């Protein structure tokens, strides 16, 4: 159906990943849980996931699967 779902998933998690990573780097007071800068760690995880989805969407767009 027209729209490859990997685009919205990829875009959304890349965006949220960038937001969280940025927030983790700035590290405002009270943003650390159990001595872990979880925003930074998890932001990077989300970013990697989002980018992988985007890569998949780009590659899938080039080679459309046989119907």
């Amino acid at each position, binding site marked *: *159906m*027209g729209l490859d779902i990997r685009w919205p*998933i990829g*875009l959304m998690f890349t*965006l949220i990943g960038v937001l969280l990573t940025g*927030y983790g780097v700035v590290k405002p007071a009270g943003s650390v849980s*159990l001595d*872990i800068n979880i925003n930074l760690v998890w932001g990077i*995880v989300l970013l990697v996931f989002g980018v992988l989805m985007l890569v998949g969407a780009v590659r899938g767009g080039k080679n459309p699967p046989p119907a």
Partner: protein
Amino acid sequence: MEPIHLHKIDYTILVAYVGFVIGIGWMLARYVKTSSDFLTSARSIPTWVTGLAFISANLGALELVGMAASGAKYGISTAHFYWVGAIPAMIFLAVFMMPFYYGSKARSVPEYLKMRFDERVRALNSIAFAVMTIFASGISMNALAKLLTNLLPWQFDLNAGIAHLGSYDVYLWICSGVVLIYVLKGGLTSAIYTEVLQFFMIVLGFAPVVYLGLKDVGGWHSMNHALQAVATNPAALYLKPAGVTYAPDAWTSAWQPVLAGPAHNPMGVDIFAMVFGLGFVLSFGYWCTNFLVVQRAMAAKNMAAARNTPLVAAVPKMLFPFLVIVPGMIAAALCTLPDKNYRIPPPIVSPAAYARAVDVVKAANPADDTAAVTAVVDALGVKMDAEKINSLVAANAAGKLSDEQIKQGLYNSIAENDYDGVILSLVKKYCPPGLMGLALTALLASFMSGMAGNVTAFNTVFTYDLYQAYFVKGKSDRHYFLTGKVITVVGIVLSIAAAYFASRYNNCMDIIQLVFGFVNAPLFATFLLGMFWKRTTGTGAFLGLFGGIGSSALFHALTIAQGNVPGIKGGYIKVLQVFPSEMAQNFWLATFAFIVCFTLTLVISLATESKKTDEELKGLVYSLTPKIKSDNLPFFLQPGVVGIVLLIACAILNIIFW
């Protein structure tokens, strides 16, 4: 509970998600041109997408809030809903049932019933299903609106002429409005895409909460150790009445406590009810015949994809207990560790009531124990731990406590738990700003797509199986396309009404199980006989189903769970049988309804003549359908082989947590 203080970053994530969801609806709208595009996605979606949507459709309020609640209440045994229930049923659906659903070209489960039997069976099933989806959707939205009312700082108090709108009403209507927009734009595809988005939101939003929670209790082994204390004295956490005690492994072993009998496990169920009632009747009834989930597989692009949909779904489903049940277990374990200063959240009490109770404590005479307790209970309106109140009064008399300290003491003395609040209390405890936004968005996502999933199943059944079948036949596709859209709006409005209804009850899990028991349990008997015995007749199926649903209602009216008062919880005609727990009552109800439906259908079928010829039943009944050859698939990708591998994996999980 104190409202959570949200930061700009949290709102940004929340808004981004809602924006993406509406955006998907908008993007898809231009591809949606016919009723089939809107209501069935024109059978065009790739397998991994339908597979993830398949589990997401069921990942609403029931799963996240209910499973964490049950994890705290019952421990790892809750995983039976997955490892005994869902997984075998999903494999059965893929291997044996999907060929008939997909191959018959039916657009819905009721339509299959019409092809296999007759119009009466279809009408009965579609009406029952329509009612059920509306309730399920309403329960989701009720939970979401309650959550937001307690969470967000904006409180509303609007006087709109005749109606008075509080925060609950405003949040309920806004969230329903968002769902309405994206479902109305993109139809089923929109709902399925959003469900996949939501799947990743939930996994990626809750994994860090589980990780931080486990780290805080000191790892898996420390958690299990702490849960031994819970099992030997559950009354300390107000999980069970005083004096009830279990073997130390009652919260941490999945099978041994169940094998030991209903008095030895916190669920209060016996092994037969667990394996037959839950594992066979309820789970197969839900996963194999509920159009809400089956619809996702029916939207797949070809037969192989349709059969693989439940198999793809089974892999993450098998691991979900670690994401949704373990948080509840962490919560119960934390309660036993005094330095963590955590309790399972009590029912929400208004600040005004707390203020009154604080005054009572200040004015109380430490010499008169009972008077103080009675006065505090009057002020707060919940069950209280008398000992804790007495020591609070004594502590205040000995040296003045601050209002805040007294309030905290009262909070800790409430002898009731609001289990549905468990998951949120952990998010609040462990998520700093940022991650908080992510976790809350995941929760919001699950509630909204719970509504969307039900509404998209409702509009398909209503349009094709009720409207087109009985009211307005033979109009143009344009007509049914528009009808589908109108019915979507109607479905949302009815869901809102159901949400108001649901707002009167406490544990949503039990209510949903009960409704599923009424409608779904007998249904699987009809399918089992219909698909695998060509002699089953329409009259047999109709009367069997009717009898099954009727008998479950009757069963509910004649039995009750220990500790409940006759009424909505059952036993309102007469109490003939008392079960140790509501869960046992539900499992037995399902078993009873299944057996009644199975027997009635069998006997009546033998006594009546089948109106369908073998030729008409081809593709609808197992013995008359040519076996599907999937020779183009390699050996290890054949649905039967994948199914066996998944069953073995599931058995291994059961053994690990024996």
